[in-house]
C-alpha cells in the first residue's frame, strides 16, 4: 500500500495532464490547479535546497574545513541580501541596483574566464581527441562557420557560390535538429518510464 499510493498519484497526475492537452476546454481548470500545485511544490523544494546550502556552509565553518572563510562570506552576503530583500522587497530600486551591480559583473567575469578556457581548449582539441573524423570535422566546421559569418566572402545572389554558402549555413541547423530529435526521443522514453511507473524517483527507485 505504501508503494501503490505514490504510483497512483503520479500516474493519475500524469494522465490528467496528458488528457488536458486533448480536452483543453473541459480540463483547463484542473490543469491550471495542478500546474499551480506543481509550482508551489517546486518553490518549496527550492526553499529546502537553500536550507541545505546554508546548513552546508554552517557545517564547513563549524568543522573549520578548507575554504571555511569563503563560507563566512557566503553566509553574511546571503543573510544580508535575504533580510534586506524582505524589508525593502525586490521591487525596490536601491535593492535591485545593489543586487544587479554585483551579479552582472560577476557573471561577466565568469563568461570572460569561460571564453579564455574555450579558446585554450580549441587550440588543444587535436591533442585532447586525436586526429579523428569527429575532431577534424568539428575544427573544419567551426572554421567554415567563422569565415561565413565574418561576411568577408560576398556572393552574387543566385550564383553557385551563394547556393553553396546557403547549403553550408544550413548544415549546422540540420545537425542540430538531428541531435534534438534524438534527445527528444530519449526524453520521451524517460518520461514514459516514470509515467508507467517503471522508474519511480519519488520512491527512491
Amino acid at each position, binding site marked *: 500500500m505504501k508503494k501503490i499510493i505514490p504510483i497512483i498519484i503520479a500516474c493519475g497526475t500524469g494522465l490528467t495532464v496528458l488528457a488536458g492537452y486533448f480536452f483543453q476546454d473541459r480540463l483547463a481548470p484542473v490543469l491550471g490547479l495542478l500546474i499551480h500545485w506543481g509550482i508551489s511544490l517546486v518553490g518549496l523544494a*527550492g526553499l529546502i*535546497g537553500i536550507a541545505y546550502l546554508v546548513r*552546508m556552509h554552517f557545517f564547513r565553518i563549524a568543522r573549520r574545513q578548507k575554504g571555511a572563510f569563503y563560507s563566512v562570506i557566503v553566509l553574511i552576503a546571503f543573510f544580508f541580501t535575504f533580510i534586506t530583500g524582505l524589508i525593502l522587497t525586490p521591487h525596490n530600486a536601491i535593492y535591485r541596483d545593489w543586487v544587479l551591480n554585483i551579479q552582472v559583473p560577476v557573471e561577466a567575469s*565568469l563568461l570572460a*574566464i569561460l571564453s579564455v578556457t*574555450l579558446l585554450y*581548449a580549441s587550440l588543444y582539441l587535436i591533442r585532447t581527441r586525436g586526429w579523428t573524423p569527429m575532431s577534424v570535422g568539428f575544427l573544419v566546421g567551426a572554421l567554415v562557420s567563422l569565415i561565413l559569418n565574418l561576411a568577408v566572402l560576398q556572393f552574387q545572389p543566385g550564383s553557385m557560390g551563394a547556393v553553396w554558402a546557403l547549403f553550408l549555413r544550413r548544415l549546422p541547423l540540420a545537425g542540430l535538429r538531428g*541531435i534534438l530529435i534524438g534527445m527528444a*526521443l530519449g526524453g520521451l522514453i524517460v518520461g514514459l518510464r516514470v509515467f508507467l511507473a517503471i522508474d519511480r524517483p519519488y520512491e*527512491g527507485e
Partner: protein
Amino acid sequence: MTWTQIGWSIIALAAVLLAGFSLLFRRRYQYLVRKNPAVKRLQDQRVIAVERGVGRQVVLGEGLWTHAYPGLGLHALSMLPGMVSPEDSVEGGQVISTGSGALVLFARQIVQGCYQDGFSPGLQERVLPVSLPGPTPLSFSAGLLPDLSTQPPGSLAMFGSFGLSAPLWAEAAQIKGGHVFAAAGSITAQAALFLNVRDLLIGEEVFMLPGLMEPTASNQAGWLTEDILRVSLMALLIVAAILKMAGLL
C-alpha cells in the same frame, strides 16, 4: 492527420512498446547491450579513484526541468542508482551536487532508497552527501568550482541539464588530474564540452547511459523502444524527403 495527431501516435506507440518490452524482458528475453569505451573508462576511473583514496564528484545538473530539454533532469536522476553502492557510503569519497532544490530532494530520496536494504543501521546512517553549491546556474558554478579546487576529484561525472559553464568545471577537475565524463547538457554545452572532454556522450547516446551502466530489464526495454522509434523516424524522414524531391508531398 495533423502533426499533433502524429506526435500523439508516436507517444502512444512508445508507451505500448515500452510496457510490452518491460514485461518481456522481465520474464526472460534480453536485448544485447552495446559497449561504449567512454562509459567503460568512467567505471574504471571511479574504481581507480576509490583505490587511490581520492573523491568522486557526480553533478546532476542545474535544474529538474527546463523548457528546451524537459527530460534531462529526470534522466540524471535515473542515472543515480547506478552511481551509488554501499562501498561508496563506507568509503565516503563521493559527493553528489545539483543546482536545484527539487533535484536535491529526489537525489537524497534515491540515495536513501538505495541504502534502505543496507547491511546495518550504521551503514544506513552514513548516506552519501548530496550538496547544493548554489540554487542558480551562476551560483552553482561559483559554489562548485572552489570545491573542485580544494578537494580535487579523481573522477567527475556530469549528467542532467547544464549550460555553458560546464567546461569550467571540467577544466577545474582535469587541471588537478581528475577524469571527466559528461553526458547531456544543452546543445551549446555539448559543443563546448567537445573541446576539452574526451569522454562525452551527445544526442540520444545520453539516454542510453543508464542501460550501459546498469543493464536492467527496464533499461533494456527503454533501449529497444528508443531504437525502434529512431529507425522508424529515420525511415519516415528519408521517405518524406524522397516524396518531396519527387514533388508528391
